[in-house]
């Protein structure tokens, strides 16, 4: 007994020592307590778990943009941003816990949330109207949530999954020589078996009905490292195109499996969450020729990166390595941060230069308009198209391009496409109406909103 206790005590002391060493050894990223004149923003991000390789660059991009605004401009019109991260590990329940923990921090609570997870977005969609905190789900979330008359608090800025699927289909149709040439073709969707992966199915089924191609969805279970059976099926079916709706390690696994069964990578199209460096690099040469949709921007360093270097990285205050700041997901984090900051700036024109509540920021997002000149001013020229959000359109813009991995870098291989509202709008209306009926919600009349 005594021996055992002594051994245990030793083990505990050792563990504590290791932990203490950890405390000392690492740099600090977590925010300080927000002051009374700070605008608090909660960061629901993930740096751990199965999706960390994709979550980390995004989280770095967001953190760096806020830090840049504070360092370069002294905040948003003088209101400093206080930013605190909480690691969700992409799990819905942990995400909700993080949200509840951070939502009331700071003088006015969080300005908005961007959970970077469709599952968490779905869960928060139920809480947003009660807590009066808007959700910026940039390029993810519910596709029908672009209808602001029903989804007052959701902003799937820059594009929904239906837009993404439509842009990819337009590109394929163009390559084939028109939508009428798609008749009889076989198109497979390999998707992450979660709300995220299932989102595009409705649109693709609609397109399949319209143009007479054969559409087969094939689910892959979380986290997506086991796909042998799926790709065996693909080898047998010999589809003409494979669309990929994966996230994290699932993407690189899919590309590796495609190489293993010999499916041509240039006939593979990923969504914008399947088109970053961590997705293709592990597959090495096998990824050459793989395509992915772009959420407006691609990889590369632009004017804003020079500012990042000057104000953060030269002083050793950046969250990533400077070489990594041009990566796709890092840039996406920057844009997410920028859209949030611009929304707050817009809201300040109406409510004054002080920390704003979620409800006030919601007005700012809904009335957000970013012109080409403003994009240039912000240093994002070449990454974004002008956009305008309104009550009836919470997406802002529906334009996207296709990029291709050449083995070393992403290159843009298409013109700008715009998703076809003739197809998507009726679907959005129907789905939003059904949601409103199910939840017994009152629908806003957008024609009466200024």
């Amino acid at each position, binding site marked *: 007994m005594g021996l055992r206790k002594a051994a*245990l005590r030793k083990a*505990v002391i050792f*563990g504590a020592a290791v*932990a203490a060493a*950890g*405390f000392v050894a*690492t*740099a*600090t*990223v*977590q925010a*300080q307590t927000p002051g009374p004149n700070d605008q608090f923003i909660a960061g629901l*991000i993930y*740096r*751990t778990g199965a999706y*960390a390789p994709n979550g*980390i660059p995004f*989280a770095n991009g967001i953190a760096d943009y806020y830090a840049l605004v504070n360092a370069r401009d002294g905040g948003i019109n003088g209101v400093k941003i206080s930013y605190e*991260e*909480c*690691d969700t*590990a992409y799990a*819905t*329940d942990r995400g*909700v*816990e993080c949200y*509840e*923990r951070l939502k*009331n921090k700071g003088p006015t609570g969080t300005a908005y949330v961007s959970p970077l997870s*469709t*599952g968490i977005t*779905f*869960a928060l*969609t*139920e*809480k947003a109207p*009660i807590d009066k905190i808007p959700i910026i789900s940039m390029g993810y979330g*519910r*596709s029908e949530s672009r209808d602001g008359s029903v989804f007052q608090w959701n902003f799937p800025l820059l594009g929904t999954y239906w837009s993404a699927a439509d842009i990819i289909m337009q590109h394929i149709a163009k390559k084939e020589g028109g939508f009428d040439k798609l008749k009889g073709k076989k198109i497979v969707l390999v998707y992450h*078996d*979660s*709300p*995220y992966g*299932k*989102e595009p*199915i*409705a649109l693709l089924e609609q397109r399949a009905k319209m143009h007479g191609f054969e559409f087969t969805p094939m*689910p892959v279970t*979380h986290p997506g490292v086991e796909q042998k059976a799926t790709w065996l099926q693909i080898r047998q079916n010999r589809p003409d195109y494979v669309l990929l709706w994966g996230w994290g390690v699932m993407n690189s696994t899919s590309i590796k499996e495609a190489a293993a069964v010999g499916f041509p990578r240039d006939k593979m199209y990923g969504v914008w969450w399947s088109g970053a460096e961590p997705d293709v690099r592990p597959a090495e040469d096998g990824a050459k020729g793989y395509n992915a949709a772009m959420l407006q921007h691609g990889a590369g360093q632009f004017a804003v990166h020079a500012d990042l270097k000057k104000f953060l990285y030269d002083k050793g205050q950046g969250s990533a390595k400077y070489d990594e700041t041009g990566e796709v997901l890092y840039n996406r984090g920057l844009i997410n941060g920028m859209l949030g900051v611009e929304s707050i700036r817009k809201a300040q024109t109406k409510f004054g230069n002080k920390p704003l509540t979620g409800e006030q920021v919601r007005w700012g997002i809904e009335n957000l308009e970013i012109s080409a000149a403003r994009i240039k001013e912000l240093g994002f020229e070449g990454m974004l198209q002008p956009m305008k959000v309104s009550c009836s359109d919470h997406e802002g813009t529906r334009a996207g391009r296709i990029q291709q991995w050449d083995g070393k870098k992403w290159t843009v291989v298409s013109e700008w496409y715009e998703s076809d509202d003739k197809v998507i709008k009726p679907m959005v209306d129907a*789905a939003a109406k059904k*949601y409103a009926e*199910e*939840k*017994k*919600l009152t629908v806003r009349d957008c024609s009466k909103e200024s």
Partner: protein
Amino acid sequence: MLYREAGQFKTTYVADQQIFPILQDRMFVLAVIVAAFLAVPMFASPYLYTEILIPFLILSMAAIGLNILVGYCGQVSLGTGGFMAVGAYAAYNLWLRVPEVNNLIVVFLFGGVMAAAVGILFGIPSLRIKGFYLAVATLASQFFLDWLFARVKWLTNYTPSGSVAVGKLEVFGWHIDTPADRYLLILGLVVVATLVAKNLVRGHIGRSWMAIRDMDIAAEIIGFRPLRTKLTAFAVSSFFIGVSGAMWAFLRLGAWEPLAFDINRSFQILFMVIIGGLGSLLGSFLGAAFIVLMPILLNQLPGWFGIRMSTALLSHLEFMVFGAMIVFFLIVEPHGLARLWAVAKEKLRLWPFPH
């Protein structure tokens, strides 16, 4: 000194057969329940409700359900998540398709009954399959149910993403809007469920389960029918789990997808039962508290002490310390936290004069 039963004489069988024969225990439990109903709503913040108390209570109920099956009847099950999903989706479909039944109690009970039916179905093989092999068989039920809710579109009302949502909930005209309402409803249901479970396990049915657990051949010889006994355990256990699944979906999540009830949920609840203590209702609560609250506590602890560190390190540390704690508790007391509690009580009775 306070905790002593000297002078408490039992003159009737009723007094001797109470749930808590010792006066101090009775007072303590009553005080806890009264505090939970009256004192907590006076000071609790929404965060305390939605992220601490509500998940703790709901998962305690699931752990009680699983404990009946694993701890009392000795049938290892890895299908808890699946049975929770049955409860959640059965409740959802009743709520959605029969709008007249706008009473959460009825909706939850329906979820529980459907889960019990499915539990009986998947419990049938338990007559022939034992131990680890049964665990594998129930694992199959988990995967089947996951598949069912992901693929049969009717069950999720044909939503494009398979994620369903509920809103405007009420019980006998009481609108369940605020976290406090949800908490009180859940607390009420959990208290009733615990009382029912306690009376089941200390009565005739519970004894038959324990007989099967301790030696099924002997139990059969003294007159318990193994199939019926095992199936009642499956039914009762699945009922509790189904109700907790419905509560988890309706009152905790509000919007959910089948992923909320995946294999990890099954493991989580099995760990609660093992760490809390097999065959102990108190253990179910302690285990749930440990598994639900400890990671959140570990994640926030450095912040409270003003230690600033990167988010990633914080999460990694949380995993490491939590894992170490599980190992630590299992080494110190393999019979779970409930056993530690019992040992502490024994010591307290002798204090300050231990032998």
